[in-house]
């Protein structure tokens, strides 16, 4: 009996392997014909979590990229073809997705979305010589992986430093409490730099309370500790779901400090079942606000809402900028679809550090050779259930 089962399983395995072989041939064929014969569109790969706990971010990025590609193709100039693969916010799956895209014939990678997968994928791409531009993987280590890796978002250290500067320069608080996610690279990365900068700016941190992904269902202890320590401002370098809990609990115990967050708080107003009046006065440092008055943002938000039925968040805007930055760099560097990935990578690498790009998440964005972006951080405050720019933001940008 056992033997029979193993024979069946062995044949199944052989069939699976044969399946691999079979799929190999058509993809190889299409990538060949794509690069020589038709030479129509530059193949752009996207990677991000479409399923699992971080799916909100991956879906936003996917939508933003799709929208940008559609618009660019409608312009009639350089044509793009987008293939977005799921990575479930896991390094192993992300490398699998990357390899799948390579089989497809990817020439430029617009992703991945989250930090840990990006670190794994960027190392592979550095070896293969494929140009990588991530919309939202914000750790410093991401761009240190190779000279072919560029970011559109701020690095974590940048956000932490900018937040501390902003709070100190505008004298927003005398005693600061911090609640952060110690099990999350993004959150602990920002906290670390925030702390260092706060110390040097003479800002006093009276409480630094951590939680982890496993025990975030109840954050009342952390809030209470901040209250007991007498914090008059709570810095939240975390994502919006947890922030909404914190706001709710603080309100229920009658604790009303100022709240200050980073780009992860973007999306707070869209949390289901959350009383948005609680978010009144929350300040956040984000490169994108959906109700900004400029024509570019307005057009993007309108198109996004029409296509996907929801208001775009900062991730979608970053992704949209990635595609447009690649587009402008490709046009300027004369990249065509019949070039191979390594040549495109070289061309884009030299082009992108010389150009200045106006996107949704910042004007006059520039990149240095390390891959970090330079753009002005913008602080917004939630007023009447909507973001409005804080007047002092231009000052802190200096």
């Amino acid at each position, binding site marked *: 009996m056992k033997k029979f089962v193993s024979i069946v399983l062995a044949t199944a395995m052989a069939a699976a392997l044969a399946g691999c072989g079979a799929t190999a041939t058509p993809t190889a064929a299409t990538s060949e014909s794509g690069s020589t014969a038709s030479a129509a569109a530059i193949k752009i790969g996207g990677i991000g979590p479409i399923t699992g706990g971080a799916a909100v971010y991956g879906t936003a990025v996917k939508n933003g990229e799709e929208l940008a590609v559609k618009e660019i193709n409608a312009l009639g100039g350089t044509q793009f073809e987008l293939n977005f693969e799921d990575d479930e916010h896991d390094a192993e799956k992300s490398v699998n997705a990357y*390899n799948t895209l390579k089989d497809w014939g990817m020439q430029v990678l617009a992703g991945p979305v989250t930090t840990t997968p990006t670190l794994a994928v960027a190392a592979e791409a550095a070896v293969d010589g494929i140009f990588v531009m991530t919309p939202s993987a914000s750790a410093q280590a991401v761009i240190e992986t190779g000279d072919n890796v560029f970011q559109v978002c701020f690095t974590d250290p940048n956000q932490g430093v900018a937040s501390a500067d902003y709070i100190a320069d505008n004298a927003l608080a005398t005693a600061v409490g911090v609640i952060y996610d110690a099990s999350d690279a993004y959150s602990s990365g920002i906290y670390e730099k925030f702390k260092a900068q706060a110390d040097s700016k003479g800002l006093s941190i009276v409480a630094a309370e951590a939680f982890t992904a496993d025990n975030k269902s109840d954050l009342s202890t952390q809030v209470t500790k901040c209250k007991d320590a007498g914090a008059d401002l709570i810095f939240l370098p975390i994502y919006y779901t947890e922030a909404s809990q914190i706001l709710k609990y603080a309100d229920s115990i009658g604790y009303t400090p100022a709240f200050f967050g980073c780009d992860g708080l973007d999306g707070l107003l869209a949390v289901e079942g959350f009383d948005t009046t609680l978010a009144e006065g929350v300040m956040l440092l984000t490169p994108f606000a959906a109700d900004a008055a400029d024509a570019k943002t307005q057009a993007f938000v309108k198109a996004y809402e029409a296509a996907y039925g929801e208001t775009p968040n900062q991730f979608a805007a970053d992704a949209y900028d990635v595609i447009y930055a690649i587009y402008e760099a490709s046009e300027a560097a004369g990249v065509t679809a019949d070039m191979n990935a390594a040549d495109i990578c070289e061309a884009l690498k030299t082009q992108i550090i010389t150009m200045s790009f106006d996107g949704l998440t910042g004007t006059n964005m520039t990149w240095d050779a390390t891959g970090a972006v330079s753009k002005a951080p913008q602080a917004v405050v939630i007023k009447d259930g909507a973001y409005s720019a804080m007047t002092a933001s231009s000052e802190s940008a200096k």
Partner: protein
Amino acid sequence: MAITKLKNMKKTTKSNLITFGIVVAFYLVIQLCTGMGMMTSSFAGQLVPICAYIILAVSLNLTVGILGELSLGHAGFMSVGAFSGTLVWMTTSATLPSWLALALSFVVGGVVAGLFGLLIGIPVLRLSGDYLAIVTLAFGEIIKNFMNACYLGYDANGLHFSLKDSASLHLAADGQVLINGAMGITGVKKASTFTVGIILILITLVVILNLIHSRAGRAITSIRDNEIAAQSIGINITRYKLMAFIVSAVFAGVAGVLYSLNFSTLVAKKFDYNTSILILVFVVLGGIGNIRGSIIAAAILTVLPELLRSMNDYRMLIYAIVLIVVMIFSQSPQLVAWRKKTLAKFKKNGSVKPPKGVA
């Protein structure tokens, strides 16, 4: 001559040879495909994870199938092995020849995981019942949360350690952060290859299959089948339980090193409860106590989600359905009876021919 030798061979030896044969054949086929340029990068990228999962499944099968204890923290052993082995690799790969540094990493990863196995096994394996499942479950979670909060740095003054943040390591200017909390270890130089993976699988199989078919192995199986009977004939229960459990932990650690050296980044979050369960699924689906089944199940179930990529959002749904169908196929009493009947018929028809062929 050769045929009679093969015929007179002990049944277990023959079965073991088939298992080794499958692994070697798998290796040769893959090498052939690579040589002929038929491999997709998608499949080539999965080879090392497949090897790691095979080692994990085989080693867990020793605990679950042969010893009969449920372990829900196999990823925890994988984690300690991965972190210690990767640290060794990062610190020695620059000075030692790379094969030696690699071998050292695997040995250290295995030994550290084994030590943790001993640590957990000594109190828990004295008890009978489901205690091991609960304790290993807790162990996996503790390791994950500890590694998430662990900061380790290195400078001229030696090693620095903190559980708070990397700033409190107080590193000198030339210092280097090795483990950075939730960010884990970054910038690992990739070292795992498919060949290394296959060699490790073969070593694992040699050790575990020999253990199973040895005197100690029979003692271990007797504990599984009836603990009281085993005790009554003078078998030292705790000792044999520990033996199986530690061997299982050692190879989990080795697999962890193999896995982590295949990626440039290593985070504790990967080795969570879900990963432990994933390995358990390989074991259960391959057949509890069936080493060859574990190998095949681990390989297929690792490749399957990638093969289903074209289904987009539905792939995890289909993956789950496949699991259920295979489970029903291999475990449902009616199907088992039907399979036996067909197999008997098949054997009756087939048994006439072979003697002719041999003669």
